């Protein structure tokens, strides 16, 4: 039934490092394992930073993935990084955030630093040094241009004064990338980024502020720093004078895209708890998961998890292939995934009832932790404004239709990604989003495929509906007057819809580019259904536990598009055949302890310490 795959003999396996890390971390359900759910829960209760767990990640080498290969690191593919961080996040968001923060701290150098600066920083990161990114201040939140931390230039040095607050790892971080006002008049060219090495500062130059107590990620080091005339060498500045804001906006394009990993991990964890419970609990004489309304909640959460994964994978690959479009893609992803994951977790929580808030359970922790993702690195509203600000570009870009084949390399997971080129990052996507401009063609191609394969009809119809909706949305956007800031609800609502169209279009693209391969198998898939020890696991044969069945006839795509179209206000009718495939995917991946995913990734549950 399968055809020979085109492409190289050993296609790239972006989940490979994640799979390896997962095995190394061991069974999270075993409380004797260092990085177990129980350990994380207890650290959270005590509000302790997970030092030992982070040390374990460094021992494995996760920090190497925060450093570009040209400086000796392993960050060859943001797709790999996405999956790595997601596997950490599904155990404990506090760890993923506390550890991953180093990437955020370093990203300004990667996008704006000189080779020397990058090499120096790489050396420190590769040595396991935590780096923090100090952008926000107590009274200004997301309004970076109101920042009052000042760096005054004197000869060959800067003097840094003022306070940064609500900074992740402000206290633990030994290096800080600080956004400081260098022109008293401020403005878009009035700020610079300075790389501060705490250990090279004089005494009293810096004071760390107390840890702030938070609703979730209670163990994280969320604190601040106050600089009192800290003297920095002139070489501390990253990029040319006045480039601070620009570099921040470039760096955010990478970090916002990678935030998808946090949402994926949180969604995964919440769904695994809820599906296990609903599969075991009996209510009204039946297994809860067999009650139609309860099953709907699980199916929707699973479909949303797959939607988030498809969106995230395409966006991560865009970092390499279409960096010029990231300014808008990253904002759409950073808006959409966290809020949809929060909504998913809330729905699962209602299914769990009182159990969802029991302190000795993990669900309440995931729920509290996941809420941070929509707040940092640009909040929901900030990201929506970033999309609104690009409406004119999006409309112009959409008026230049592109063939979907243009996206094949972007979305074809058999194709290795080219090295990331920071010079191609742009603050505005002058050609809009190719994924959207190619959607009409992609929908047409899908419809043609469906002529030969009637099973595809549902997915093709839904893709057509999405294309029509996207078309109307662009017409609506074209009629909106441009906003100058503080956009009204109509604009923000259009941006929310646009992000959903983008997610749906990314899903269509991903399916089109990979479905021929999915009929075979994904890397990491064990043909015979054996576990690591070669033992056969019950319910573990390919048809049941593999992701392959999800790809057949575009079933996962239909599920994902159905959910998104519903949120876009399009009428969506129940599709039993799609639900059946989804349910098989969900229960199969749960029973065989695999990641809830379009791909194959065995988890360490049950493998023992």
């Amino acid at each position: 039934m399968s055809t020979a795959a085109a492409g190289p003999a050993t296609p790239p396996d972006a989940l490979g490092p994640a799979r390896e890390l997962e095995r190394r971390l061991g069974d999270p359900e075993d409380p004797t394992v260092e990085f177990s759910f129980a350990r994380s829960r207890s650290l959270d209760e005590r509000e302790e930073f997970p030092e030992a767990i982070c040390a374990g990640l460094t021992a494995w080498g996760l920090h190497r993935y925060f450093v570009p290969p040209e400086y000796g690191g392993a960050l060859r593919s943001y797709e790999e990084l996405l999956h790595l961080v997601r596997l950490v996040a599904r155990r404990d968001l506090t760890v993923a955030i506390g550890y991953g923060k180093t990437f955020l701290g370093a990203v300004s150098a990667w996008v704006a630093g000189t080779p020397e600066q990058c090499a120096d920083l790489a050396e420190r990161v590769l040595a396991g040094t935590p780096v923090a990114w100090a952008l926000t201040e107590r009274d200004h939140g997301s309004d970076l241009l109101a920042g009052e931390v000042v760096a005054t230039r004197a000869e060959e040095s800067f003097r840094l004064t003022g306070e940064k607050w609500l900074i992740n790892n402000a206290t633990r971080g030994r290096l800080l990338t600080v956004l400081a006002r260098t022109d008293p008049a401020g403005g878009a060219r009035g700020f610079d980024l300075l790389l501060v090495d705490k250990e090279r500062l004089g005494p009293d130059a810096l004071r760390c502020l107390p840890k702030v107590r938070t609703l979730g990620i209670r163990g994280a080091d969320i604190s601040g720093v106050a600089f009192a005339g800290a003297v920095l060498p002139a070489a501390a500045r990253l990029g040319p004078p006045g480039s601070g804001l620009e570099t921040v906006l470039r760096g955010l394009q990478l970090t916002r895209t990678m935030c998808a990993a946090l949402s994926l991990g949180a969604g995964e964890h919440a769904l695994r708890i809820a599906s296990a419970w609903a599969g075991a609990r009996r209510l009204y004489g039946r297994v809860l998961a067999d009650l139609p309304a309860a099953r709907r909640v699980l199916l929707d959460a699973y479909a949303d998890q797959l939607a988030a994964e498809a969106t995230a994978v395409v966006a991560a690959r865009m970092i390499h292939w279409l960096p010029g479009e990231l300014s808008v893609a990253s904002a759409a992803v950073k808006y959409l995934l966290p809020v949809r994951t929060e909504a998913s977790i809330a729905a699962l929580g209602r299914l769990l009832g009182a159990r969802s808030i029991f302190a000795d359970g993990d669900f309440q922790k995931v729920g509290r932790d996941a809420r941070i993702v929509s707040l940092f690195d640009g909040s929901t509203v900030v990201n929506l404004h970033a999309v609104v600000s690009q409406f004119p570009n999006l409309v112009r870009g959409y008026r230049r239709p592109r063939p979907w084949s243009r996206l094949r390399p972007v979305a074809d997971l058999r194709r290795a990604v080219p090295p990331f080129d920071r010079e191609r990052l742009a603050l505005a996507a002058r050609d809009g989003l190719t994924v959207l401009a190619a959607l009409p063609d992609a929908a047409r191609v899908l419809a043609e495929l469906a002529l030969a394969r009637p099973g595809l009809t549902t997915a093709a119809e839904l893709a057509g509906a999405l294309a029509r909706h996207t078309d109307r949305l662009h017409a609506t956007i074209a009629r909106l007057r441009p906003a100058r800031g503080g956009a009204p609800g109509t604009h923000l609502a259009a941006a929310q819809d646009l992000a959903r169209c983008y997610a749906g279009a990314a899903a269509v693209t991903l399916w089109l580019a990979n479905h021929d391969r999915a009929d075979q198998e994904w890397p990491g898939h064990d043909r015979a259904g054996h576990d690591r020890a070669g033992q056969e696991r019950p319910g573990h044969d390919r048809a049941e536990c593999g992701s392959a069945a999800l790809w057949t006839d575009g079933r996962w795509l239909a599920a994902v598009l159905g959910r998104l179209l519903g949120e876009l206000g399009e009428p969506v009718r129940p599709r039993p055949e799609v639900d059946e495939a989804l349910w098989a995917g969900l229960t199969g991946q749960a029973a065989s302890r695999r990641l809830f995913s379009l791909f194959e990734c065995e988890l360490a549950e049950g493998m023992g310490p």
Partner: protein
Amino acid sequence: MPSITRTALTDWLVERVAYYVERDPAEIDPTRQLTIYGMDSVYTLGLAGDIEEEFGVPVDPTVAWDNPTIEAIADYVLGATGRD
């Protein structure tokens, strides 16, 4: 590319900015910083696309950051097209 005169370009920019900030074009002074009219810096990034579409001149999105007045933007665009 149609020939651009400084006056035409400046007038067009004044109109455009007035449209963005919902004011009468007569209130827009080409020699003053755009930010005083309430134009958020993230939103000025969109101006580059407008210029490119109208005049066919590729300009960097940060054009209004580095050239914060309408006159300065006009200078920059005319410079980029090699005429004045």
